[in-house]
């Protein structure tokens, strides 16, 4: 997947205002046949999966026993005992081993990444565009649900999910059909291709973490401010460590900050409270929607929204203010237009 097609800013704004298609074929997908009671699947993931209806998907984590994040993933319940796990490309091999080690012998785990293509269609016009290809029943998909559709006589899975903060859909389709679907989508003049560059600025405006940058095995979901994707009412690997951290108050916290200028904080820049370095920037960029620099990073200490900090790197100093997430507050952007309340 290229960094950009016609330019990061134009692609970013087109996704926020119209609809873009992203080639996300690099992501990993596992198919899993596992009985909930005996497989041990529930213990491997932090999200509650027992309560998931068939046809729904849920975001959460795989942790190590120190509560470090091995990966963030979305699990799809295909039927009572059949699941699809969508994992990050760089962690696919390790995730597979981790699952193999922790699932009981009776479960059947299959890495289908090589034969599964993935196209994300994101933006306020995404439903209108996909209705033309997959039919009106796509209207029935609620946020974080999915269904089977067909394209060129091949089954595909479409979920109403995404990584942009816009109304959008993720399409899992046999590799050999992905190119055809891509071409067909781009025949619709409302649709433009979007690259990795704007995928990053779009997700950052929503404060969505990027694995390997904002979360990794050095931090727990608690430190990352993502504890709402952890079900403490069940047992899972890393729970004990997380509870301990919860009691002690975790040392480092991921904060979001906004520059007072168009200057971009960048990954690896230092975060200062006056003269004292308190942390490191994990993600930073110019925000095309807000026209200021934004970023996030882990800091030592308590810095509530409104705190003034200084970002330093490459002999640049950028004054920033801590803000609540997300950076971009959107009104009902995840809902299709016909469900929105009149303003």
């Amino acid at each position, binding site marked *: 997947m290229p960094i950009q097609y016609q*330019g*990061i*800013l134009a692609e970013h704004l087109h996704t926020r205002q119209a609809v873009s298609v992203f080639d996300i074929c690099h992501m990993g997908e596992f198919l899993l046949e596992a009985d909930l009671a005996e497989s041990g699947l529930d213990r491997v993931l932090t999200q509650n999966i027992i309560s998931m209806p068939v046809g729904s998907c849920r975001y959460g984590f795989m942790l190590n026993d120190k509560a470090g994040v091995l990966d963030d993933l979305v699990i799809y319940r295909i039927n009572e005992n059949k699941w699809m796990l969508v994992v990050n490309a760089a962690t696919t091999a390790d995730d597979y081993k981790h699952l193999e080690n922790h699932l009981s012998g009776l479960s059947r785990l299959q890495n289908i990444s090589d034969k599964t293509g993935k196209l994300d269609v994101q933006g306020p016009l995404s439903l209108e565009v996909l209705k033309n290809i997959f039919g009106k029943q796509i209207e029935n998909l609620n946020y974080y649900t999915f269904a089977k559709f067909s394209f060129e006589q091949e089954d595909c899975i479409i979920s109403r999910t995404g990584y942009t903060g816009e109304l959008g859909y993720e399409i899992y389709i046999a590799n050999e059909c992905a190119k055809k679907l891509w071409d067909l989508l781009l025949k619709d003049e409302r649709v433009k291709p979007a690259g990795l560059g704007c995928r990053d600025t779009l997700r950052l405006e929503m404060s969505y973490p990027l694995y390997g940058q904002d979360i990794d095995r050095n931090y727990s979901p608690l430190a990352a401010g993502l504890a709402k994707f952890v079900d403490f009412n069940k047992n899972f690997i890393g729970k004990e460590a997380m509870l301990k951290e919860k009691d002690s108050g975790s040392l480092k916290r991921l904060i979001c900050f906004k520059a007072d200028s168009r*200057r*971009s904080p*960048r990954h690896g820049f230092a975060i200062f409270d006056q003269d004292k370095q308190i942390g490191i920037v994990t993600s930073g960029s*110019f925000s095309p929607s807000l026209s200021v620099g934004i970023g996030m990073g882990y800091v030592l200490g308590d810095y509530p929204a409104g705190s003034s900090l200084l970002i330093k790197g490459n002999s*640049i100093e950028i004054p920033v203010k801590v803000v609540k997430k997300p950076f971009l507050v959107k009104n009902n952007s995840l809902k299709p237009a016909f469900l929105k309340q009149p303003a």
Partner: protein
Amino acid sequence: MNIPGNLLYTKDHEWARIEGKIAYIGITEYAQHSLGDITFVELPKSGQELKQSSYCATVESVKAASEVFVPLSGKVISVNSQLSKNPELINQSPYDQGYFFTMEFSNAAEKNNLMDAKAYETYLESISK
């Protein structure tokens, strides 16, 4: 690639347009294209004395930040104030509306250290191989 014949160029992809004692300074089509969408530029101050090839400005794009080096020695006369609100002018019009600043250059002989359009074109071909 647009390489106007009336400008002088550096290997770091800055240009200078000489008008009498004054030089307009900016970055080339090649530079703006490699940087991608430019989102911020930090310019020198009026009156600032600069030495040939020393740091004079920073451009930031969505992808990265880069330093800009001044093609000639001299004193900054005025900066392009349009760029603070509309840095995309550098992408849209690198040789005209997207110029960075004007300067009064102090040593005309330094022009010999710069490339003309033809030499710059040959240089671009050599680095793209």
